[in-house]
């Protein structure tokens, strides 16, 4: 698996898209920091962008990579390699190269700006950690889509739909149901609803950092325990790990039974 990972990773690190992606983050970091000159504001803006953009790029990129490397995958399948190692290797190659582009693209301008001397370093680390998790999750979801759809057009379509659903539609439905059910105690429901969507989950981690003052304004006991203690952080991270593990488990399950 490590060998496949290595080759996929180097293949991708040399691809044009990795550079585009890297350059985009580099530009974003530079523009936010040096034109704006406000570290806190830059980090807030970045957080808003990252929880939307990283999933989009992760799914689309993952889907495209899979379809484009189909023949190569077939070449690998004829080699004495386990199927799970081939797909996990490729998956990690994509996810890690995406994460690398993100971390380097944003990291370089922030380091130049003097991040290590500022106390925003924890916010920034959290940001990169969340970006990494989202890359892992959405690439895994992309591989799930492609393994179940041999048709490229369909696969790309589903990928975009998935993103649209998790990034926007889900929250719309979520908001509507909270408003409709406002007569009932909602704190458990609202936390559960958040846990079931990795984008919302990442958002919660960001809220814990940026908006704790506002979150503590709500009376619910479950909320208070969740946000007021370390519990929220721990549960959110565990859920993020689950969100990586579950699609990966399905990748392994499906790839063992698939015909190529």
């Amino acid at each position: 698996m490590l060998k496949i990972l290595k080759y996929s990773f180097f293949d991708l690190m040399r691809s044009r898209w990795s550079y585009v992606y890297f350059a985009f983050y580099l530009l974003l970091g530079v523009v936010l920091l040096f034109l704006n000159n406000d570290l806190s504001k830059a980090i807030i803006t970045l957080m808003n962008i990252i929880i939307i953009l990283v999933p989009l790029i992760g799914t689309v990129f993952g889907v495209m990579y899979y379809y484009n490397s189909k023949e190569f995958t077939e070449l690998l399948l004829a080699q004495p390699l386990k199927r799970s190692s081939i797909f996990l290797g490729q998956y990690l190659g994509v996810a890690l190269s995406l994460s690398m582009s993100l971390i380097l693209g944003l990291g370089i301008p922030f380091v130049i700006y003097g991040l290590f001397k500022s106390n925003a370093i924890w916010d920034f680390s959290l940001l990169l950690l969340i970006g990494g998790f989202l890359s892992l999750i959405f690439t895994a979801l992309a591989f799930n889509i492609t393994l179940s759809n041999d048709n490229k057009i369909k696969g790309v379509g589903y990928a975009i739909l998935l993103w649209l659903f998790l990034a926007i539609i889900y929250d719309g439905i979520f908001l509507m149901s909270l408003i409709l059910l406002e007569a009932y105690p909602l704190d458990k429901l609202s936390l559960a609803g958040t846990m079931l969507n990795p984008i919302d989950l990442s958002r919660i981690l960001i809220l814990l950092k940026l908006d704790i003052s506002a979150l503590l304004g709500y009376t619910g006991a479950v909320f208070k325990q969740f946000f007021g203690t370390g519990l929220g952080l721990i549960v959110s991270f565990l859920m993020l790990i689950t969100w990586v593990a579950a699609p990966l488990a399905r990748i392994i399950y499906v790839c063992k039974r698939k015909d190529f």
Partner: protein
Amino acid sequence: MIRIQNLHKSFGKNHVLSGVDLDITEGGIFAILGPNGSGKTTLIKSILGMVIPDKGTILVEGVPTKNRSLYRNRIDYLPQIANFPGNLKVCELIRMIKDLRGKVAYDSILIEKFQLAPYLGKKLSTLSGGTRQKLNIVLTFMFDSPLIILDEPTTGLDPISLIQLKQLIHGEKKKGKTILITSHIMSFVEEVSDEIVFLLEGQVYFKGSISSLKSKTQQLDFEHAIASILKDNHAQNIKI
């Protein structure tokens, strides 16, 4: 070498293989033929473990292939369409495949034979179709495995390379290897193969030497023999 028993595979409603029984003995060149959609590629992919059969067993060197991967170390496979990760260089791809299989490789001799040396430093995405196929052949033959499977090996080759491919195949045969070939070029099949396996409607319709095929169909040349099988079968279908 390969023993296939009662192999079934369908894709949706389409029954591609319906009870294939086949014994490939060790040594010699076997051509797998059949009309489009007769299940040639599916059969080969089943042997390689790329397609998972619905029913039946495949034994390679006496070992069932189901859920195993290491037996593929004993097989060299030449896929039909050769597409490689575009950002790798030719030499990197060769090194990578060697790295993945970890066996003795004859890459340098083959590279010389197919005159690929000038392309070694080039990216795979810049290669022409013919060069790719040559590289594909190099990647297949550079290992010394007892079983070789070639899926349409002649695609895109120039005459010189074709001759070299034939030499290569003969050379491997002399070493006592078993070689499976699918091809649409009948002259090529006739020239190289010892035995024919003819697939029709998901089953082995005929297995034997070219001469016995000719006598069975009462045709003088190989191409006509094949054509007559297809015609007969077509007529039968209409009768039913």
